[in-house]
């Protein structure tokens, strides 16, 4: 894991994938409406998985907004930390 995944790092990653500025992405905006497509989303999921968590496209694709995605990632990161601490 090269760097920590945070809400803001996720916002920046998504913005780069769509080609817009990070501040244009609200926490509850529909990312598809902002121009994110399934393949780019898949690439992001794959990238965030490099942090050591198991993220699947299936769980991320149902609700496509930053807040929901961050919640999933945060939960998994917490579980990972708990497991590592055990």
């Amino acid at each position, binding site marked *: 894991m090269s760097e920590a995944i945070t809400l803001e790092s996720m916002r920046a990653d998504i913005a780069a994938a769509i080609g817009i500025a990070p501040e244009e992405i609200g926490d509850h905006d529909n990312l*598809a409406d902002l121009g994110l497509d399934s393949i780019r989303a898949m690439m992001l999921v794959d990238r965030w998985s490099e942090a050591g968590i198991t993220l699947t496209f299936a769980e991320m694709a*149902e609700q496509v907004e930053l807040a929901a995605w961050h919640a999933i990632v945060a939960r998994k990161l917490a579980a990972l930390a708990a497991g590592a601490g055990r």
Partner: protein
Amino acid sequence: MTAPTRGLAAQGPAERPERWPLTEAQLGIWFAQRIDPDSPAYQTGQYVVLDGALDRAAFAAAVRTAVDEADVLALRFLEEDGAPAMVRDEDAQPMLEVVDVSGTGDPFAAAMASMAADMARPGDPLRGGLAAERLYVLRNERHLWYQRLHHIVADGYGTALLTARIADLYSALASGEPPRTAAFGPLLGVLREDADYQTSTRRAVDRDYWAKALDGLPEIVGLASGPALAARTHHRCAMDLPASFAARLQGLAAEAKAPWPDVLVALVGAYVGRFVGGQEAVVGVPHMARFGSAAASVPAMVMNILPLRVGLDEDSSVAAHVASVAAGLRAARRHGRFRGEHIRRELGRLGGERRLHGPLVNVLPFFERQPRMAGLATRLERLGSGAVDDITFTILASPSGQDCRIEVDANPTLYGREETKAHAERLAVFLERAVAAATLGSVPTLTEAEERAEIVAVNDTAHKVPETTLWALIGGQIEATPDAAAMRFERETLTYRALGEAVDATARRLAAEGVGRGDIVAVALPRSIGMVVTMLAALRLGAAYLPIDLGHPPARIAAMLRLAQPRAIASDERHRHLFPAGSRLVSARANGTVPPPARALPAAEPTGAAYVIFTSGSTGEPKGVVVEHRAIVNRLLWMREQYAIGPGDRILQKTPASFDVSVWELFLPLLAGATLVVAPPEVHKDPAALAALIGSERISAVHFVPSMLAQFLAEPLAAGLAIARVFCSGEELPAWLRDRFHEIVRGELHNLYGPTEAAVDVSYWPASAGDDSRPVPIGFPVWNTRLYVLDGRLRPVPRGVAGQLHIAGAQLARGYIGRPDLTAERFVPDPFGAPGERMYATGDLARRRTDGAIEFLGRADGQVKIRGVRIEIGEVEAALTGLGGIAEAAVLLRKDAAGEGRLVAYVVPAKGGAPVTAEALRAQLAATLPEAMIPAAIVILDGLPVTGNGKLDRAALPEPAGPVSAGRAPASATEKTVAALFAATLGLDPATVHAEDDFFLLGGHSLKAADLMRRVRAAFAVEIELGAVFAHPTVGRFASHVDALRAGETRRADLAVLLPLTTAEAGAPVACIHPAGGLGWCYAGLARALGDRPVYALQARGLTAGEAPAASLEAMARDYVETLAAVSAGRTVHLVGWSVGGIVAQAMAAEMAARGMPVGAVALLDAYPSEVWRDEPPPDERAALEALLRIAGHEIGEIAGELTREAAIRFLRAGGHALGQLPEETIGAIARIVENNARLVRQYSHRRYAGRLVHFRAAAEHGDGLDASLWAPHVAAVEAHDLPYRHGQMLSPAALATIVPRLQAAFAEADGSR
């Protein structure tokens, strides 16, 4: 683990289960499957090899749990009132089956066979059994997990989701860890979403997007020809890409700022582009439609297929190409819910021939390539993923782009197994090269092994040929067999010795004119011994000969002479009018004045030019191909050996010398010791005469252009002929013609191919009786010749794919004389040859069959062939726009109902210019173009139709039978009815027929005239004569005639002595005198072509009852002159006479001159003075009937059995000809007039007319006996023209195209001199 709650699962067992609607995606599969209920094509399946200690109980539990979670696996389908529905029914759920095959000899094979059998079960959803879960036990630590899911229950994403869930549940159970994946969501959420979308504004937006995105979508072609309809099975070939590929792929993805799956779509799209040609390829991209959807966590069928346009700009960087395709993909996905089926319907692209997209490109990045199962090594293989319409390229990889594998699934009705495998291998190499390339343009299509096969192996034609010249070879033969028969012409035979002497004598005369090595000698002679000797004499001196077709217009001949600058023109005085004033002509005839052999004659060199042959040039002027000795020597020596030509062979020379086929006909026999049999001029157009000649001269080798071969085979005299070898070239040889040949003629048939630019022929194919090729190939290269099939960037194309044929090797021409620019354009460096070697770009489209034989597919440009004559559309268009008054012109080759091609021109008159007519344009074209290049129809338009991007829209050009004039709408009731009858007869829209429209210019002919008359009689209840439409061809005039008839004012005007053929009143009138039969209707076409001038036909007395026929020809001439005087009112009168009418015309001219009436031009169409006929036997009934048939444009031989008057009338009526409808008494009158005229002609002695005759001779009919010089005693001067037609064809549209301009010039001259 508990099953998730489902809104619809709560119902009691006694209730009727709730009907669920199918998703739109499911409906697509439903209807496709219902077309073929037994087809297994929509079964999808896979297996996973499980290596390691499998906990079978845990595995069974995992499967059971996942199956319980997946609503789709508990679906039963039913059909109510014709509509499909589905219900949840737990009885429909698959149970895990365990099959132990460990006891079989080859457990893996047994499992494979069992899976294959299961995959082959019929797919009808109404039968149930839509899913299977099976575990094969191969041995203790090896299992095979097989799943089958009908496409109606799951798409690729759904299957992968199910697999991943089962694998995860197994891992959890086996390891005691919690599962990492979540349970599936309910299907109902997916169904609600699907239903909501139907009525959403989103759907309307999506629909608009597709309408715009697909505007101007090209016609879709696949990688193979044939309709793309779902097959029951498919071929599957897979290729793994090397591990190094992933890094390059990621590099390109980063450069293009595109996700790697989109990079792959872009590159596979570019690969597809290599097969379809054009500016873009359209592929189908499966879209999983899960992003932002409830279906993300549901195994279901919601997948859609989106059309994607892939631009094929191969010059920009690969990254730019990828970025552009990725942008298109991103936009498409945003609107990806709108079903492909709906897009297809809205664009009207239904059925296998009208497709929305070509091959599918399916990149699957969403799941790990290999399921992760605790303690097990896994390997997943896909068995099938749904029906394959055409060909599907699937790329499997892990989400990070590693482990790339290509799978190619191909429809077996379109692709062979080897072809499928070749695609997989070639695509793998293509992708590896493309990710490392700067531009796509630099990426070859073929693998190295394929390129070696296509360029080197198929062209292994090296053969030793001596460095020599045509004359050296023929001269050697003269010395070797001096007493053998070298040449036959009519009744004359020339030995090789005599031939050598004649050539020597002519060569000396040419040398005396200054002809030497490197010069050009134009040869403008009819086919004869003299022609052959003159050509040989030129070759003897090291000069090239340039054949001039005597039928070509002087303007075209002048253009050739300007380019070629011949040192001498070998011709005779008869043809002086063809050459520019002051041209010096060298006589071909030996006249005893052979210059002494003052010095040794020069000799030719192998690199010297042998001949210059002109072909049509797209830039508007003909281009002269210069062929060297070494090139033609290669061709002739190849042919001598290939077909074992030698002494004893008799080869017919019948091709006009201006076609290069004549080159082998002329010289192959002479260098092989065989006999050259020269056909008399014009015989090559007459199948009966040819058949007779071939039989009587025992011809052993002869050439036919295929269209002429078809006519020849239709000739009864050809049946049963034995001809050892028949060669075809010049056009495609249709397979049916090959088969017909072998039914009719005993002998070999060979199909040869080659352009003039490569010494006659470069490929050959034995079209034997046993050959069932369709199409008939043009075959394999001749000696020292390489044939390449290349794409637009000169890259070799795969076998079976169309490309442009290029020729390299010994036979290439030197180039186009005087046109280094054109030469450089067509003769380009050979990228596969030694440095300095050239190749010729033929412009022909071709492809190689799997056996390497080449098939000709057509032209890549505007070149067409009509009866074997090569024509550049551009030259015809340039001639039209060069006429003045024409702003734009487009010319097309259109096939008529019988499949025969004809040129149709579309012209737009210049703004503010004089009005143009089709007939006048055709007449003007005849002054610059040879006959074959003159359009059969000219359509005048206000503007040419263009496509959205401003190009000429050829498809929108109307059929030529359309109206030719805009004008006054029909006014009176009679006019309206007549217009409607014209339209009905000719199959036109009545609204487009105007009052001034001419029945014949609208497309009518004599057969249609008879049809029109039936309709007119029924509509008006009048007795109307058939000639009325010839006499009154426009709607307005015909209607007036009908009105007059109904008012009882008219009797048979069409049988009167003076029949007006036009309504024009101003200008000097033209009188056309009837031929033997006494009717003048045959001049109707001439009258139209002459345009705005009063034209009358003079018809014989005696056609109507109670009228006596003329008593003498003098009396007839007096009668006609007096009749004319009444209408000419002192004006000059021009006279035209065909056949007997010509004799009368001369007599009238003399009579008018004697009376002091101004005589204009006197034109005779194939007429000869009366004394010629005096000793001929008097005509009988048969001759009269023959004359009658000729009036109708038929020949006597067309009637089977005995020729009686009844048979002739039956024949004419059966053919629907107007004459057949004449009353019995009129036909009797015609027969009497024929006999009477014959008698009058024999009794008549011509009076001298001290003026000039313009004479047109039917050269195709007459040998040397009859010509214009026979008139010399009876007139002051004769201007003679030879036309390549028969007597009966002199008023045909084709002949008129030549005659009318000459006539108009003569009329203008005579008008001006008064």
